[in-house]
């Protein structure tokens, strides 16, 4: 089964999840199953998506951090705003930490790239730059499931 699912995975899908200019959503639930959401700023993977690390502004991610501390379950959607190409990752949190200073340039660069993309589709760059992005938490999750989340009849279908 695992092999079949891997075969269905479009290799460009994962590559696009590392491109700049992504809009990132993070979903969690508390121990009672009450869901929560927040926006992420950046995403990275150093091991071919065995794990991903998502960066969240400290200012807006209290509920998310609280939830992963108790349930460890995480859902992350990475979307290209210009064509709505979207992928959802689900898995277990392995590590939650404050992002390091040497990661701030990467996070800032991803916010700038998103601001550029949004500016081209009508959201002024100056507005996006007002979004809090630093300091940030870095959540590393083990990727257990990957879903096609692009709007359409295949949205929600598992690709890995």
């Amino acid at each position, binding site marked *: 089964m695992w092999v079949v699912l891997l075969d269905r995975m479009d290799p460009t899908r994962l590559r696009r999840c590392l491109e700049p200019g992504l*809009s990132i*959503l*993070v*979903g*969690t*639930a*508390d*121990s*009672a*199953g*009450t*869901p*929560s*959401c*927040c*926006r992420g700023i950046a995403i990275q993977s150093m091991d071919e998506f065995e794990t991903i690390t998502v960066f969240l*502004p400290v*200012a*807006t991610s209290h509920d998310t951090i609280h939830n992963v501390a108790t*349930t460890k*379950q*995480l*859902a*992350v*959607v990475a*979307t290209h705003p*210009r*064509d*709505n*190409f*979207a992928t*959802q990752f*689900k898995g277990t949190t392995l590590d939650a930490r404050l992002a390091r200073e040497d990661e701030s340039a990467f996070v800032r660069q991803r916010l700038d790239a998103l601001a550029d993309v949004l500016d081209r*589709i*009508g*959201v002024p760059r100056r*507005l*996006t730059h*007002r*979004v*809090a992005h630093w300091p940030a938490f870095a959540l590393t999750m083990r990727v257990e499931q990957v*879903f096609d*989340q*692009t*709007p*359409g*009849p*295949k*949205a*929600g279908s598992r690709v890995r």
Partner: protein
Amino acid sequence: MSLRLSDIRRCFQGVIPSMIATADSRGLPNIIYVSQVYFVDDRHVALSCQFFTKTRRNLDENPVACAEVMDPVTLQAYRLRLKFLRSERSGPLFDTMSLRIDAIASHTGMAGVFRLIAADVFEVTCAEPVAGFLTEAPADMPEGASLDGMRTEMRGLQWVSERINRATGLESLLCGVLEALEEYFNFSHTAILLHDEANRRLTTIASRGYGESGVGAEVGIGEGLIGTVARERRLLRLTSLEADLRYGRAIRREAADGKRALQAEIPLPGLPDAQSVLAIPLTIGDRLVGVIAAEDRDPMRFSEWHEAYLDILANQIALGIDRMMERCDENADSAPTEAQAQTSAISPLSAGPAEDRRVRRLTYYRNDDAIFVDDEYLIRNIPARILWKVLGESTRTGRTEFSNRELRVDASLGLPPVKDNLESRLILLRQRLQEKCPDLQIVSTGRGRFALRAGATVEMTER
């Protein structure tokens, strides 16, 4: 609840996509984008159920959700705690949400594929701003319904009423209405399309802000944004049109692998880069008279205030158009009016020294029921037959004055026996001539009468 939803209504215009998180019965989270969270009232919102299979399953197992919406002007985010109440598959809320989706689907050639399955209604148990989301406090921005807006509302209503009452004919009424919309609401790109019951199509009869383009353009009932508004007889306001179209096109790409053949995308009328559209059906009872469409490059151009207010204005405009079309049919054989007296000296087609006159070649293609002027498309269907009739008559007899009544009794023109829209067809013919063949004019000489004026030698060919 710390916030009233009506205080953050801009968040519900769909300019910036929202997100919704759910969890299954085991607490495993799921998060997705939604193109729009719909405002229902101060305690309820609705989400469109189209493809959200996982979200729907989660809500059945665990009927709570968390949504985040954003103010498109300030970019402030607001978090809503939601309790799922019910799915509506019919009724006013469903119809309103469905209209928007149907219009986008039709516009992107996805009619029937991309549709609303249900309107999922939620109680909002808590709504609050996401503290710290912005690094600086959002500036206070004026609301769409400002005091200026309220003053404009009264004056605008008065102004449009005056224009309708003062209009001497359908053409001046249509122009007056579009002028008033620009003057009082700054709607600088507008068009009026009238319904032809005989062929179930809408024809652009007047436009403003598009240069010479637009008049004569047709759309079928149910086709694209305007055709959908006409079919449903419901007002449609689309903000951030580009985002909606991107969403629709994403679905189209995804669905393209399927076996179903997709229709060609219908080009937007008017502005190629329109970001917002307001289309208002003109109806009298259940009868469709036409549609007024306005568009703008500003995604936030049309507000809820415009929607409610223009709905009222549309009733007046529809009645005005209908009354004017009826009135145009009266007194067709009455004594010549002042206008008629002034135009009685119209040159017949053959008048004037031939060497001074330009030659225009008009060709009627019988199979296509269309007239071309110097190889350029001019007009088709009934207005083409009318032009061919009066040109032929004028060439044969030298007569240049005609009445609506004689057109009505000529069965070869194919006018419907009732609600024949003759006046609007003549306006269309007049405007197309003005744009494509200004040497040839149809001049109104009073109610129910018109004259043909030729400033060129006309060569007629029939194929």
